[in-house]
């Protein structure tokens, strides 16, 4: 635990270093460090400084707009928001997940596998592979997808095409790659046609092969410096996610399961509509992002991680054969019940990508996925909860409506929020173990970003930073005077100007 670094005892004689914005993540956040005269880190924080306000401005709108409006939270995982809201408004028309028409259920699953595949491919290849292939402290000009395409054209191109395939699955079902329509209250608005199905089937074997190749690649990278990869930014934590009734990895629908760092079950098969009985959120003054925790464990120790690492750790098995083989190897690697390595997020993420590719093939070969019985209706209700495993973890949508179908209250717990405490812990671990006492340089600071990036955070879900992000490092003395400043411009040029 590195929580002693959350707040310095005193800020006297400490200098502040900020990484602002964090690049190659979705959205806008910053990291701040307070260092003493010997460069020892005294405080390290990840701040989320954007405010979106979706929960407020969807109040007063009719509920059927929800899946289409809230998906605008994100340009990377809009389908996850679309489907979580879709599941919530199903309940508003009296439809529980088990009463959804089978064709609609399969179509939504296919859609979500496409979403998770494209998001995972984007994160690994476009955002993280530069760090993993060139090194965390490599030349800054190398740390972008363009350099990957230049130096590793096969890997880069496969990443782009894997993502494209996921986007094509989405387009076939939603009419657009980003921000289409599909889920309506009680079902879906369009059947998959034979020609659309055949179009997707024609490439699926290649996609599975590439996804399997990506798992091999990440294993090779992880194995190339095993102790480092196992320990960098690593923290022990609880894990939360959905699993199916028989404990299988589940991305679309299931019960909540939480395990502790020993792999012992904290809760299992919890109906997610009762999430509020199990999860609460704490607010801290220095971040717009809340800190959720498991109620039964309390604020101090109840924080948990979500996302690929949590899901692969939590599930009992994966229903597709190739991904299951990889899961077994992944779990065996850790040598204990749970894998805590933060960089193993990448490994777990690509096992999921493989699972998605296999599942897409399975669903495309199921004739029912082209069924036309797509919408069911029941008795009107006034409250709906939809929970889904988004690429970045468990995503909660909760709405209340009035008798005129108008939204009166909304609560969203987005995946990245659940990882807030963990990301802060990882930042503190890296600051304490890898930065403390060293002269800070830009490549060194990238270590902090590497720790954050492993979680694939969606900090606001709106802006996307690839490659040469402008970056400014400021050295400020205790009176707030600027002592030194390092500026990285949008074109990659570095400027060192002495402030003061």
């Amino acid at each position, binding site marked *: 635990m590195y929580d002693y670094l959350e707040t310095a005892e005193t800020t006297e004689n400490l200098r502040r270093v900020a990484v602002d914005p964090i690049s190659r993540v979705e959205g806008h956040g910053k990291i701040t460090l307070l260092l003493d005269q010997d460069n020892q880190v005294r405080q390290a924080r990840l701040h989320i400084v954007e405010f979106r306000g979706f929960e407020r401005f969807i109040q007063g709108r*009719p509920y*059927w*707009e929800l899946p*289409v409006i809230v998906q605008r939270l994100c340009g990377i995982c809009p389908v996850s928001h679309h489907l979580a809201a879709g599941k919530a408004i199903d309940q508003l028309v009296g439809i529980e997940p088990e009463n959804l028409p089978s064709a609609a259920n399969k179509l939504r699953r296919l859609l979500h596998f496409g979403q998770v595949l494209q998001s995972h491919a984007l994160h690994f290849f476009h955002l993280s592979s530069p760090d993993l292939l060139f090194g965390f402290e490599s030349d800054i000009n190398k740390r972008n997808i363009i350099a990957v395409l230049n130096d590793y054209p096969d890997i880069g191109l496969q990443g782009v095409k894997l993502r494209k395939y996921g986007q094509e699955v989405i387009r076939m079902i*939603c*009419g657009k790659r980003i921000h289409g*329509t599909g889920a309506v209250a009680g079902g879906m608005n369009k059947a998959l046609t034979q020609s659309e199905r055949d179009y997707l089937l024609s490439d699926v074997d290649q996609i599975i092969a590439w996804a399997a190749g990506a798992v091999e690649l990440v294993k090779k990278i992880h194995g190339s410096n095993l102790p480092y990869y196992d320990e960098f930014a690593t923290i022990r934590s609880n894990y939360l996610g959905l699993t199916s009734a028989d404990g299988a990895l589940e991305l679309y629908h299931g019960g909540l399961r939480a395990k502790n760092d020993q792999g012992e079950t904290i809760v299992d098969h919890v109906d997610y509509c009762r999430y509020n009985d199990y999860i609460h959120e704490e607010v801290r003054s220095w971040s717009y992002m809340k800190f959720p925790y498991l109620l039964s464990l309390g604020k101090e120790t109840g924080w948990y991680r979500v996302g690929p690492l949590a899901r692969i750790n939590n599930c009992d098995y994966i229903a597709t054969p190739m991904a299951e083989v990889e899961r077994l190897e992944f779990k065996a690697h850790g040598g204990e019940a749970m894998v805590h390595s933060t960089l193993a997020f990448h490994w777990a993420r690509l096992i999921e990508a493989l699972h998605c590719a296999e599942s897409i093939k399975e669903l495309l070969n199921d004739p029912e996925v082209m069924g036309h019985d797509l919408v069911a209706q029941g008795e009107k209700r006034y409250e709906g909860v939809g929970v889904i495993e988004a690429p970045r973890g468990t995503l909660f949508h909760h709405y209340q409506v009035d008798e*005129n*179908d*108008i939204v009166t209250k909304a609560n969203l717990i987005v995946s990245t929020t659940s990882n807030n405490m963990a990301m802060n812990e990882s930042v503190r671990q890296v600051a304490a173990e890898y930065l403390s006492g060293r002269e800070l340089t830009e490549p060194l600071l990238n270590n902090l970003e590497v720790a954050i990036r492993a979680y694939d955070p969606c900090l606001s879900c709106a802006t996307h930073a690839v490659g040469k992000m402008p970056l400014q490092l400021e050295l400020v003395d205790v009176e707030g005077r600027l002592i030194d400043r390092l500026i990285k411009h949008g074109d990659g040029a570095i400027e060192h100007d002495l402030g003061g």
Partner: protein
Amino acid sequence: MSKTITIDGDSIPFEDGQTIMEAAAAAGIYIPHLCHHPEFAPHGSCKLCTVIVNGRACSACTFPAMDGQEILNNSKELNDDRRRITQMLFVEGNHLCPGCEKSGNCQLQAIGYYLNMLDNHFLHFFAPRELDASHPDVLVDQNRCIFCTLCVRASHKDGKDVFAISGRGINKRLIFNADSGLLKDTDLDVSDQAAHICPTGAILIKRTGFTQPIGERLFDHKDISETSLEQEQGDHDR
């Protein structure tokens, strides 16, 4: 020898009593419009159909066709003016296409595309507009009303006079014919033509939003000039 008018150099016939808009539509010539509908008396309020008749600007939907008129319609200057008018309509209301269920079926959006409108140009009014969801089957979102009065005219034809326009300037709004002022207390029925006539997303049938998939919406494959002529020539033939 039939009487003719000339639109952008093409001579077209017309019948006595036809407006320029009607004569143009019958001849397969599209004149952009929003408040005009072939089933109702012209209103002449949106001004998108402004054409130059013998050197003077006129509304094609209200101006009668007369023998020998020289009419300018599809010129850069007129389309530039029409684009500005459309931009004014966008900033006057609160038109947020990304979350609107009328997107793809909306005539205002389609006109924007037709006129190659790439931004709003003007500052938004951000006018406070209300939503009336009190009716069990019909929802009115004043944010998207462009005051074309098609619902007013249609409801009059329905024999109910449910709708009227009230107020001026930024406070202008659609009002409902009930003591309470609420839509639920009017005679409006979901089967009324007035409930289906809105060219934008201001009057909507509840619980039907987004049920029509992308690819099957009115303007997904054809622009508004094509759909408008098909519809109005169809009406004319009937």
